[in-house]
């Protein structure tokens, strides 16, 4: 890579069920403006804008990036839109970083969003196809059988999923931007919440949120002049695989394993559990924490659920490798933005700027996003130091 790149500004809206106070354009502008403020920059300091957005079908708005140019101050500037389903927030940050690393642009504003209150994300992609009965039961219906297979193979205690649901909401209660604020949530409350897609309960699933997240990414020279501490981008990787093929390993997809291997090699990570101080990982359904712990090499095969139950990933249990200190996707899910929030929250940690959910002295953090049928992966490693 020719140039070093770093996150020098981070902006997030409050995540909530309905942002009736703003249009979609207002929502993205809010996040973008906060990122500029955080970097102490103005619109004029930006060379290009990169927008990320989950499927257009959600809000029924085709090519929304065109409509957003005014709101993002990029008339007459290069702008690009990225789309990789639920992983798009991560992929968008990586595309922005790549343009800076290549030397093409010196400073980029990148923004992702979802306004679920104006959309129907659950059913928008469940259109009828003649070669399949019309039974698509949303993302939960797709992932529940895969989770069941994980539980069968590992003989995991059913408590592991419940523990993640509680842990991430307790983390979220430390983060004023998190959608769900459930500081008193208990294992019993999660266990007694209604089944949606057995084995997944209501409280083991992510909420539907409105929100946007923005980053300012600049090259080394400009990052050094930045008033606040930059988060240095130490590695980026994306991988994908088909949704369906004979012999596909759905519980621990090959694309996720390969993506992690690539990004760890770039950042010099050999033992993720030891080398990282924390991680922000895309966990929209509770069981995806133990599954990704194994897929990403934080736990041995079949052992992820034990690590979760032991509290290794919990701030409140003083775990050695806290996951999703911000509350994660289980606390806020503006789909298109969710991946970028993971990347942004990883950056906040290594900047020492994560407020009440800060991991003391965090120096190296992983940001992770996945999408589609767990087939698109995007990851980055950010550090407080350049190398």
């Amino acid at each position, binding site marked *: 890579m020719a140039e070093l790149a770093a996150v020098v500004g981070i902006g997030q809206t409050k995540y909530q069920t309905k942002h009736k106070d703003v249009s979609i354009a207002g929502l993205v502008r809010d996040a973008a403006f906060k990122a500029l403020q955080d970097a102490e920059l103005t619109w004029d300091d930006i060379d290009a804008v990169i927008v990320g957005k989950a499927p257009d079908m959600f809000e029924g708005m085709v090519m929304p990036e065109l409509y957003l140019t005014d709101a993002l101050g990029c008339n007459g500037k290069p702008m690009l839109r990225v789309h990789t389903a639920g992983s798009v927030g991560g992929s968008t940050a990586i595309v922005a970083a790549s343009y800076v690393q290549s030397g093409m642009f010196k400073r980029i504003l990148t923004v992702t969003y979802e306004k679920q209150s104006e959309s129907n994300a659950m059913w928008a992609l469940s*259109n009828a196809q*003649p070669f399949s009965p*019309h039974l*698509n*039961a949303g993302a939960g219906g797709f992932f529940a059988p895969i989770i069941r297979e994980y539980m069968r193979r590992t003989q995991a205690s059913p408590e592991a999923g419940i523990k993640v649901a509680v842990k991430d909401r307790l983390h979220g209660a430390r983060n004023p931007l998190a959608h769900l604020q459930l500081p008193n949530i208990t294992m019993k409350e999660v266990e007694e919440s209604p089944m949606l897609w057995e084995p997944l309960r209501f409280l083991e699933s992510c909420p539907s949120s409105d929100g946007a997240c923005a980053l300012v990414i600049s090259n080394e020279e400009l990052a050094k002049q930045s008033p606040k501490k930059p988060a240095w981008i130490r590695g980026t990787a994306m991988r994908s695989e088909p949704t369906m093929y004979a012999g596909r390993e759905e519980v621990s997809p090959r694309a996720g394993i390969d993506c992690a291997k690539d990004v760890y090699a770039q950042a010099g990570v050999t033992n993720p559990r030891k080398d990282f101080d924390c991680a922000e990982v895309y966990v929209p359904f509770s069981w995806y924490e133990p599954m990704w712990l194994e897929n990403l090499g934080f736990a041995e095969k079949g052992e992820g659920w034990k690590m979760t139950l032991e509290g290794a990933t919990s701030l409140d249990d003083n775990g050695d490798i806290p996951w999703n200190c911000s509350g994660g996707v289980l606390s806020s899910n503006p789909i298109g933005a969710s991946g970028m929030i993971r990347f942004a929250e990883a950056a906040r940690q290594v900047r020492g700027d994560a407020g009440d959910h800060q991991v003391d002295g965090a120096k190296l953090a992983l940001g992770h996003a996945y999408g589609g049928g767990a087939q698109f992966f995007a990851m980055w490693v950010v550090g407080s130091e350049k190398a």
Partner: protein
Amino acid sequence: MSDANKEALEPITGIESPVYLDYNFTAGQATARFLTKVKEGKLVGQRCPSCRNVYIPPRGACAACGVATNEEVELPHKATVQSFTIVYIPIPGNPIKPPYVIANLVVDGANISFLHLLSECKNEDVRIGMRVEAKWKDPSEWGFAMENIQYFAPIDEPDVPAEEIGRLKDA
């Protein structure tokens, strides 16, 4: 104040604006063949010339090998439950009452699963490895659709070990 006037004073912050998209589905060669056979009450998949795995419904190519699939294979109507979920929320516009079971099923001789409904059994009795069989609608109702099969129902056969479901026998 009349209701009409009161309404006029409420600030309008949004309007409902549904989008309707009607498509003509162009199935392509493989899916068209499959649907033609489904209309005759037959399940026909395609075998990959490279890895020998059988795809149903066939999409004309093996996504693992990246090669076209041409060889057709007629498959029996018995299947094994690879995994499943019990759904507690209704599907909009679908008369099926929750809770219902959606299963990933691997038809005998196939190496990939498809989704279908499971019925004629207690939800709590459904398990990975369970043997089931297609229950077809009356032939007068058959169209170019997988809905020609109303659902799958359990049959009295021993469970298949999970490691063997969908795997090539000689692999």
